[in-house]
């Protein structure tokens, strides 16, 4: 059975709201809902342009609602974490009084029997507002808006920027050949796949094909690779601090040409080799994790591959070859 590796990445993005959405969000914090005039119509939420033609709209903002009429709806019987309410509710298209188009929002009505097209609803505001569409906690039956608790107010200044934290979870299949190569590293062996057409060797098994000849490489292509080589080129990085960054200190990655082969291992970590001492021609040998240590089974650019932790100087004298530096791949 194929093994999957799950990984989640998240990032706190920013959103510049611009003059019109910014004004809309600022008004929400003040418990007011704005639309924009588009000819004789009022669009809610307001936009900078006519959505049908793209024509620029003058930012002629007008207040609408707060009450409105349900035009259409659907019941959400089992809300998830991402839904606006933690109990069953309706998503409803609500045409606010004075608006030409409906606004999509949550309607807290208790049961689907209590919802119907044509019913009148009004916003339930959050007690503390930040200038976001969720400042309206939901809509409720009736024509009187309410505050969900004690009215704490808003930020008291124009809202120009919105935080948007995105998260995505990947489930990546690990090919059998990749697992086979990882298992070999646990025995302190490095294996590759040799293309029968061009003789190029590809290390590891996460991409079991030759991109030059467009050929899939199977178990019969397997070759054993040496544990020693020469640094051909390198990267020294001053890490930029971003959300999700795992390093704070300057770090290096090296390219290692394996002895007696045409194989360059790219973006390899170095061990016991200070950044200032890295240069083209340094002889290195593989450093392995002890056989019983758990290893990172996710390989990728610049990460250790299984039990192969990196490369350390072997103490032999440098190789002097002017072509070495060109062996990046």
């Amino acid at each position, binding site marked *: 059975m194929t093994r999957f590796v799950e990984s989640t990445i998240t990032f706190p993005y920013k*959103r510049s709201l611009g003059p019109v959405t910014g004004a809309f969000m600022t008004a929400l914090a003040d418990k007011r809902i704005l639309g924009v005039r588009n000819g004789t119509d009022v669009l809610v939420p307001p936009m900078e342009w006519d959505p049908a033609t793209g024509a620029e709209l003058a930012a002629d903002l007008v207040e609408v609602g707060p009450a409105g009429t349900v035009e259409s709806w659907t019941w959400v019987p089992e809300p998830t974490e991402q839904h606006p309410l933690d109990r069953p509710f309706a998503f409803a298209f609500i045409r606010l009084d004075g608006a030409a188009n409906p606004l999509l929002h949550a309607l807290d009505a208790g049961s689907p029997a209590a919802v119907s097209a044509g019913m009148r609803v009004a916003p339930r505001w959050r007690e503390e507002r930040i200038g976001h569409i969720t400042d309206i906690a939901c809509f409720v039956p009736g024509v009187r808006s309410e505050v969900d608790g004690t009215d704490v107010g808003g930020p008291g200044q124009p809202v120009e920027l919105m935080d948007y934290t995105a998260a995505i979870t990947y489930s990546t299949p690990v090919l059998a050949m990749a697992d086979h190569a990882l298992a070999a590293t646990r025995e302190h062996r490095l294996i590759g796949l040799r293309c029968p057409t061009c003789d190029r060797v590809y290390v590891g098994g996460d991409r079991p094909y030759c991109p030059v000849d467009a050929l899939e490489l199977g178990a019969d292509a397997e070759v054993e690779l040496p544990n020693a080589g020469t640094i051909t080129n390198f990267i020294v990085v001053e890490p930029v601090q971003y959300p999700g960054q795992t390093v704070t200190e300057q770090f290096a*990655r090296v390219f290692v040409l394996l002895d007696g082969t045409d194989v360059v291992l790219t973006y390899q970590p170095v061990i016991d080799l200070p950044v200032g001492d890295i240069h083209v021609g340094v002889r290195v040998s593989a450093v392995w994790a002890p056989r019983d240590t758990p290893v990172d089974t996710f390989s990728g650019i610049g990460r250790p591959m299984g039990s192969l932790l990196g490369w350390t100087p072997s103490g032999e004298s440098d190789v002097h070859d002017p072509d070495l530096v060109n062996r990046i791949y």
Partner: protein
Amino acid sequence: MIPCAVVGVGQTHHRSKRRDVSFGGLVREAVFRALDDARMTMADIDAVVLGKAPDLFEGVMKPELYLSDALGAVGKPMFRVHTAGSVGGTTGLVAASHVRAGKHRTVLAVAFEKQSEGNAQFALGSGRGASLGAGGSFAPFVRAYIHRSGAPEHIGWTVAVKDRLNALKNPYAHLKIADISIDKVRDSPMMWDPIRYLESCPSSDGACAVVITDEEGGRAAAADGRPPAWILGMSSRSEAGGFPGRDPVRPQACLQCAQDVYQEAGITNPREQIDTAELYVPFSWHEPLWLEAHHLADEGAGWQLVDKGQTELGGSFPINPSGGVLSTNPIGASGLLRFAEAANQVRGAAGEHQVDGARVALGMAYGAQSQYFSMWIVANNLQPFG
């Protein structure tokens, strides 16, 4: 094949943060400048092509759908292009292909990036730690170029100064370093050895838009006293990012893409027949490196053109008169900016950074591990070589 021409060019004022505009506001700033330049409105556009870097940069999935109404594309064909850093260039090529094929008469190409709303290092590291960033990825290529060409280290500083001086003449450019100097570049911090801070591109918010139309539209613009840029050649190529023996200093995809675009444009001696080029140079050393990989200088001799000042505005072969990627880098738009600036040169519309008498220009963009390439050749008439 239907001849086609650029009749409108627009770009935003580029900054590290354009917090004053939404995504829609940003692209529309460029689009309306391009439409005004073409004396057109959104109603004249038959199809829209949008390009930008990976969605991870801003965290907007399918930005082409999100932005269709802002781009006036409702009810029209709308396309998204993505070829890493070369995407802006490819966006221009895809738009022009629709016109060439006779499918649409007038197509709008738009490319943008709002880098300040995310983080490029995060995105380039696929959202994980220890990202190498673009500088880290390209530093070994630069080291190999320096070793094999024997170029002295001041070449990198020279390009960095030249492009920033050019940017001072470009009202839209992001970096304006009035006191830029060799000393200043040389004394700036080493970021990704051998690349220094001031030898690197900035991170920008910005957009670019280009209106491409057919021969009739091009001739109408010319008759109206608004010179078009005729697209004489266009090509894109790619190659696998890493295989034993791959040479990222002279990638096959680049060499072949350049040969292909010259052949289609009828160019037999690129160095003589092309008057100026906008090359994608995010790190200063890429100027001599690309001169060689585009058959514009002999192998190992690109740096000598730089050293002799020939690539300066006013030199015999000006490169990046706009200030280039080194001065302005809204990643997804950076390629289209190269194509647009090349077009403006042959239209005589480049303003203060105009190359005198430019008739034929090359626009180029590349991306990822120097593995995606897009190029076009534009000229001030359909038969510039007689």
